[in-house]
């Protein structure tokens, strides 16, 4: 369970860039929550705060009951993050890339071996397992990065635009993967600027624009709230009014 209460974050010398303003929402376990918003809406900043890399100026954020500021390292053990930056080590093989993170998470060898095998298999990386990641395609790199983020079987999974640069086959494979994780009771938070992505996968949607939450709920609730007929119309009308897309 992810919970944010009135979280704000500004950047710049005098805090003049207000990236996130008074954001509150929850993402329950066993569901995929979509964080939907245009570029620059504050999605990556929100995920970095949840990933404990930056500290909120105001408000409280917690994951699985652990405060992201106070219980920093406990949170890091608890989450798996596919961040905006997802570089691999090109001179290490797929297996070695995943293993490095598993070791840092303290998995005992036997368990780690088993986890790596499972991940390599479910993500379809078998043929690439012992190849260096140098020269992998976007999709292949993404799969390795996902495997790396999931190696310690985290209860909460944060994904920042995971479908960026993926072909349709990889996107579908990724969706299946995420649904399986949801079935296993994980809490998933998925950010995207692509409405169709979110609509196809998410149980709940949080629409953010210009740093604050514009609307949240299930797809049906959002459509009703906007008085629209499709989610796309709802998205545009919810964002377009006020400061949404223009920001």
């Amino acid at each position, binding site marked *: 369970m992810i919970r944010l209460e009135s979280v704000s974050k500004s950047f710049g010398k005098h805090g003049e860039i207000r990236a996130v303003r008074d954001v509150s929402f929850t993402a329950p376990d066993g569901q995929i929550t979509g964080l939907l918003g245009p570029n620059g809406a504050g999605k990556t900043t929100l995920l970095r705060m949840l990933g404990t890399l930056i500290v909120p100026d105001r408000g409280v954020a917690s994951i699985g009951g652990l405060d992201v500021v106070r219980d920093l390292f406990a949170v890091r053990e608890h989450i798996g993050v596919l961040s905006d930056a997802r570089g691999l080590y090109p001179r290490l093989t797929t297996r070695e890339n995943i293993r490095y993170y598993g070791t840092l998470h*303290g998995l005992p060898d036997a368990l780690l071996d088993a986890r790596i095998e499972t991940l390599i298999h479910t993500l379809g990386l078998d043929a690439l397992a012992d190849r260096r990641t140098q020269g992998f395609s976007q999709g292949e790199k993404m799969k390795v990065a996902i495997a790396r983020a999931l190696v310690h079987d985290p209860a909460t999974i944060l994904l920042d635009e995971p479908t960026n640069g993926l072909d349709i086959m990889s996107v579908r494979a990724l969706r299946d993967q995420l649904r399986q994780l949801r079935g296993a009771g994980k809490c998933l938070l998925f950010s995207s600027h692509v409405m169709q992505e979110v609509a196809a996968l998410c149980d709940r949607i949080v629409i953010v624009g210009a740093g604050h939450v514009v609307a949240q709920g299930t797809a049906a609730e959002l459509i009703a709230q906007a008085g629209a007929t499709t989610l796309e119309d709802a998205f545009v009308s919810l964002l377009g009014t006020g400061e949404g897309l223009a920001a």
Partner: protein
Amino acid sequence: MPGQSVASPQERVLAVARKELLDTLRDRRTLLVTLLPALIAGPLVLLLMFSVIASQLDKVRELKLPTIGKERAPALVAFLERQQVTLTIAPSDFETKIRAGEMDVVLVIEEKFEADVAEGRAGTVQLIYDRSRDRAQSAIRETEALLRAYNRQWGSQRLLLRGMAPTVGNPLNVESIDLATPQQSGAFLLFFLAYYGLFAAVMGGMAIALDVTAGERERQSLEPLLMTPARPLELVTGKWMAVAAFNAVVVIITLTGYYLTLRFAPLPAVGVPFLFSARELAWFLVVLVPLIALLPAVMLFMGTRSRTFKEAQASVSLVIFAVSIIPVVQLVQQKKDPDWIAWIPVSGQFSLLGQVLRGEGIPLAHLAASFAVPLALTVGVLLLVTRMLSRESILAGK
């Protein structure tokens, strides 16, 4: 599973160090560029310097003196020949040959030499040479010295014939006493040994230090790494361990290269009992330990500070320039280093390396002093890097 299995800090530090070493060993181009000079450059420079010195020594040992007018001064010729000088007949175009560097010095005994001497005037001999040629210096010096010696001997004999003590004509007696031990004579050559050893400690860790910091950032793998349970201090310690270990290997390879070259290569005998035995090798390593630790830390700092690999390389080359110029300044000064120099990083190490090479013992206090500052700095710089990695701004500008 979360919470069930947590690695200890030591395990995480080792995991980081292991990964960075593996990553570096896979980077063949960097390995080649770092290790090849270490293996080859040193021995090559040594061979070169040895043959230059040897050829100069040969010249001194068997001085050949092309002469014009040998028959005009039989006593002088006899004196020179007693001093192991080989007198030959100089060709008529000797001036051209001297300018071309084919001859070092030519002795010309003037035609009226005998007549002058017979009439009690000073006989004149000419030495013809080109002072600007370094290689000729020792031959020139040697010939001048021999002629002065002959002059003195001849003068003394004349004074004796006139019933006067030779000291009347030579009231000042100059004795040169060379205090250089045999090992000190080779000091200049050995400067290069010390310099290269120092340089290996400076350069050895550079590529890897930048790769694990600026490279990590440029590859976009830093952000996910910072979200693992590994503390920034553990990441920094692990990375430093990998870089320092690699640096140590480069230094060991460089020095071993010297050791093997000096011991087994068919070097020309230069008459200097040159000591770079296993003992000196071990002392070199001990003396260089503080730099093997400090420079990787400084380079990690530079790499972390920089946004890109290129920027990092630029700032690191400044460090390298500063470090490599210090020994040269010390050498040019040609003063005996004061005792407090041991406290100063780089200068202290260079001074101690010189002491090792001159066969002097190193006082334990000096060695301790030379460790203190660099090791304290290493800890300080690593803590600084840790603080940088803990800041939000580390993510900016990617």
